[in-house]
């Protein structure tokens, strides 16, 4: 057990070591910096711009940088352009043949590899390696973009669920098309060239060119905005449909209740009148009544 003195000291320590943590989005931080009187100081402005830029660049460049890293690793491991790597078929199966001094290479130290050898695939050599690089790049892009979109959704006040779903949907479609085009390009190049580095070069170039063109088309035609607007409209339609259906059900129920009530009242009135008529007829009838 702690003594009173120790408790006081601990309290003091906790008090002096308090921190407030604010979680804000990039846009909100931008607004805070702009509205802060000292935010106009050049060094603070520059520091924030650098940090913000790095955050954006870090998220967006990673996947493409990964493909380029594969390409540069490959060139580096082959000892620059001194080693020739090409595809040749032996016994009906394609093989990667490496020509040059093996002592300069760290990973691909042999002279002949199967086209689907794990080493070859990891280095992005040949058709299988390039397709693997394109696929992993595509998956990585989707993961990073999804994480970025979800974080942005939670940290931005005005963000709506439709914006998140719409932006994610178009992101996935764009990445899917770019990855598909890269894989197709790798296939065509591997059929036309014997040089094993060709498919990965095609993956890098076609991946970049396709994603850029898709971004520009999206921006020009406002596809993402239209998808978001469509989802919003759909949401409004669903809500208004549910409201209308509920009103219809209420109205129908009310009508049915009213009809039943009217019928009950009408029937009761008729029965009462008939009974009263019958009773009156009985009592006022001139015919003698016979009592047994």
């Amino acid at each position, binding site marked *: 057990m702690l003594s009173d003195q120790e408790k006081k000291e601990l309290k003091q320590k906790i008090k002096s070591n308090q921190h407030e943590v604010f979680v804000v989005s990039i846009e909100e931080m*931008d607004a805070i910096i702009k509205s802060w009187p000292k935010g106009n100081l050049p060094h603070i402005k520059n520091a924030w711009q650098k940090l913000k830029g790095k955050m*954006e660049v870090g998220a*967006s*460049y990673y*996947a*493409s940088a990964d493909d*380029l890293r594969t*390409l540069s690793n490959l*060139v580096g491991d082959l000892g620059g352009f001194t080693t020739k790597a090409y595809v040749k*078929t032996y*016994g*009906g*199966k*394609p093989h990667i043949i490496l020509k040059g001094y093996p002592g300069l290479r760290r990973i691909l130290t042999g002279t002949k590899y199967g086209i689907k050898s794990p080493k070859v695939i990891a280095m992005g050599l040949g058709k299988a390696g390039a397709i693997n690089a394109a696929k992993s790049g595509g998956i990585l*892009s989707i993961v990073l*973009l999804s994480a970025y979109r979800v974080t942005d959704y939670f940290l931005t006040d005005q963000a709506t669920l439709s914006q998140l779903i719409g932006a994610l949907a178009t*992101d996935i479609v*764009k990445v899917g098309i770019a990855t598909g*085009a890269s894989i*197709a*390009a790798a*296939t*065509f*190049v591997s*059929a*036309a*060239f*014997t*040089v094993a*580095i*060709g498919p990965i*070069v*095609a993956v*890098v*170039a*076609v991946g*970049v*060119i*396709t*994603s*850029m*063109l898709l*971004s*520009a088309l*999206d*921006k020009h035609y*406002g596809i993402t905005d239209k998808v978001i607007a469509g989802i919003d409209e759909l949401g409004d339609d669903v809500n208004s449909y549910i409201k209308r259906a509920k009103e219809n059900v209420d109205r129908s129920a009310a009508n049915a209740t009213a009809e039943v009530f009217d019928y009950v009242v009408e029937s009761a009135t008729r029965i009462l009148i008939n009974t009263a008529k019958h009773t009156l007829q009985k009592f006022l009838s001139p015919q003698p009544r016979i009592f047994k």
Partner: protein
Amino acid sequence: MMGEMKPSLLERFLGSALFLTLSMAGIVWFILSAFSSVSDVISSDPVLTFNKGAMYMLGASITTSSLFIGVAYHSIFLRKVSSKTEKTLIRGAIFGVLIMILVPQVTHFAVGRIVHERHYIECHQAEYSWLLYKKYVYTKTQDVCQNLSTEIKSK
């Protein structure tokens, strides 16, 4: 060659079409964007647009054009280009990748210097980015930027 399969008709012409379309679209886009940025700088336009994404297209077009030659030759003649030609084409393709990495950074640096010297401000509200694609917008004054972003939002 033993074990080598004959490509289908679709494969033969789809490959050439893909590389031709991408290289043509890329080079046209690069020329138009570069021309637009240069004319904005020369005319001291109140709004200067720099499409960094389009700057990747020069290198990408060189790469796809080099690959297109090999793929088209293979589609038409159903055989691969000679070893010497192939070496040249692959060197061209790798040169394109290097250009693709360098040109956007160099042009962005140059545009950055120009806008700094001419006291332009970066109009973040009017900019757009997705993955590597980024379109920078610089304006002479804050009011121009405000008007531009309102115009974009109203579209």
